[in-house]
């Protein structure tokens, strides 16, 4: 199993993360969460590293955990993580037009996780627990309530201008 390293995985950074939680099988999810926070996704090499470093785990086992939970991503996420709530309340109040407006604005067809320039990633989530504000969009940790196609386009325009 030859491992190329296109991601330039910083082993000392991984060691630091593993050490901070303790190199134990039971800390795997916390470790993966931290790794995802640092890299914005779970690089394959990082999973292999963790799987060989912690006793009782293996790369295949770590991969199993990473693919079991929806919170983990195996593809790089954008600088801005857009979460469109499509729970029941948001859905009936029009989350789909909002989602389609985002796709159109960012030229992202269905199934694409991250925009071409790597700035935005887009996913739907099932309920954010803010049904009173439906439809809700969360970008990174900021909540945008009662969205419409026009409103979300303005929000995206603002972010794109900041990045330009």
């Amino acid at each position, binding site marked *: *199993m030859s491992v190329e390293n296109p991601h330039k995985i910083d082993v000392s950074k991984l060691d630091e993360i593993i050490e901070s939680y303790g190199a134990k099988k039971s800390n795997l999810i916390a470790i993966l969460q931290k790794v995802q926070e640092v890299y914005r996704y779970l690089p394959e090499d990082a*999973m*292999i590293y963790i799987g060989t470093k912690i006793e009782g785990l293996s790369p295949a086992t770590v991969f199993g955990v990473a693919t079991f939970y929806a919170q983990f991503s195996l593809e790089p996420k954008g600088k801005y993580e857009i979460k469109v709530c499509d729970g029941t309340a948001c859905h009936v109040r029009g989350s789909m037009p909002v989602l389609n407006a985002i796709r159109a604005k960012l030229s992202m067809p269905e199934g694409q996780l991250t925009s071409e320039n790597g700035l935005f990633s887009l996913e739907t989530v099932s309920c954010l627990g803010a049904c009173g504000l439906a439809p809700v969009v969360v970008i990174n940790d900021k909540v945008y309530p009662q969205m419409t196609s026009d409103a979300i386009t303005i929000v995206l325009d603002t972010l794109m201008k900041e990045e330009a």
Partner: protein
Amino acid sequence: MTNEIKTLFIDGKEVEFTDEPNLLEVIRKAGMNVPTFCYRPDLTSFGACRMCVVEVEGRGIQSSCTMPPEAGLKIHLNTEKTRRIRKTVLELLLANHDKSCLTCDKSGNCELQQYAEEYGIRKIRYPDKALEDYLPVDDSSPSIVRDPNKCILCGACVRACTEFQGHSVLGFANRGSKTVVQPMNGRPLGQVDCVNCGQCAAVCPTGALTIKSDIENVWKEITNKDKKVVVQMAPATRVAIGEMFGLPAGENSIGKMNAALRRIGFDLIFDTNFSADLTIMEEASEFLDRLKSGQNLPLFTSCCPAWVKYLEEHHPDMLNHLSSCKSPMSMLSPVLAKFVPEQLNISRENLVIVGIMPCTAKKYECKRPELTKDGKADTDYVLTTQELGRMIKEAGIDFNALEPEPNDNPFGEYTGAGTIFGASGGVAEAAVRTAYEFATGESLENVDIKELRGTSNRCRDIELDLKGTKLVVRVVSTLKEAEKSIQDIKSGKAQFAMLEVMACPGGCINGGGQPRSCDNSKTKEIRAQGLYKEDSELSLRKSHYNPSIRKLYNEYLQEPNSHKAHELLHTIYKDKFTGSYKDI
């Protein structure tokens, strides 16, 4: 807990139990049975397949493989409800299954096929697996073929990989209807650190994990008139092959095997037991040399190709401990290549060497570049015990009616020390028998070193007295146990001078290529007893008394560890540390 006898009721019958871990074991002990895919007595209970459900009065439906027995329970195995659940499970599994049973490698041995037949599944109420949901078959490994379309997600292979070998090459991935069992990120099995032990295939209830077949290749060679095909068979095969023809486990069928191989068309029949004796000559001498010099101790045995691959890939810094001796199979092949062409007056190119092995990893071993000469593999093909059984059936041979026949000489003669190589502890026992006499110059009176035997205890330390020199020999089976011993060495806790490792639990008699026995954890012990019985019945029981071996040394090899012996019988190992943090 004491072994107090308690009772419970199965279908109204009072049944005794003591320390059985679950209801299923109690049911089986009482001579009854329920179907199961995922329960394997040597692995932890998983409760995944829901086939073993029973109705427990007051508790409803329970999976018998996960429920501990309690005194006074009233359980029912065969009720309207349990039948309905099992049928639904079967229908759901079959709906999602590649049902090309007729051409499946597991056909006739498949538990899904068996239960579908027993439960009279004639119609499946659910739509068939969609064509676009079929996943590619992985045949990248020299030993194992993985067909995810036949996987029922019982998890037996994942547990075998983790609990036996300790490094989980196979794991579950994804979730819900997308769940698959696969190596890391779906990589080909042939490109990850799989040791090819085949225990995953041995516990797989369906055709999802099967042994890669070399039967057609061997038939082709046998049919080719220009070729002479010679064969050697490992010790463990003779006490298991009979199981495929209804004979009891442990019955020594070597004579019938010789006869069957001749009927099939093999030209000369030799025995790996001969080269097991040869291995002992070399390895015992190597061991004594190391004891004298104090270097590279403890000595690791090197017969098990899964263990060798594991060490190369995970602990290359320990390779100096590994005996440089080739495995018995790989010792005999170059000896045959050297002497048989002359004997038969043919060229080496026209000699085909086949090994019959209890082992799927031997299929990998025979492809190791270290074990080739002039670009030609020393051993051309390895067939597992299962494959030989199939060839015997294909050839229309009535195995049970065969008259036992002897094998061919000189590479067929063996001692009892050679035959016990097939059981965990056997290599160490054989080595001690010879090493004692080499070291002390005295005769070892009691050759039965019973402390080294036993298939259930996977790690044993035995102290030996080499005429004043006390030393400890450790015997382990499974790589999980081997890893613990390696950690003992690295942390300076190890006191042993020799470490015998066999990757399969209980040794080669329980190898991945043996006839299926995963539903019965006693089979391996019975097979081992078959080998110890043959050992006790042979007149010669120490390798260095094998007359053919003595002749080989007198006429060619000169002495153990000589230059010629090294050329023919020893090998090298390589640092193959991959798939780990060192690469990144």
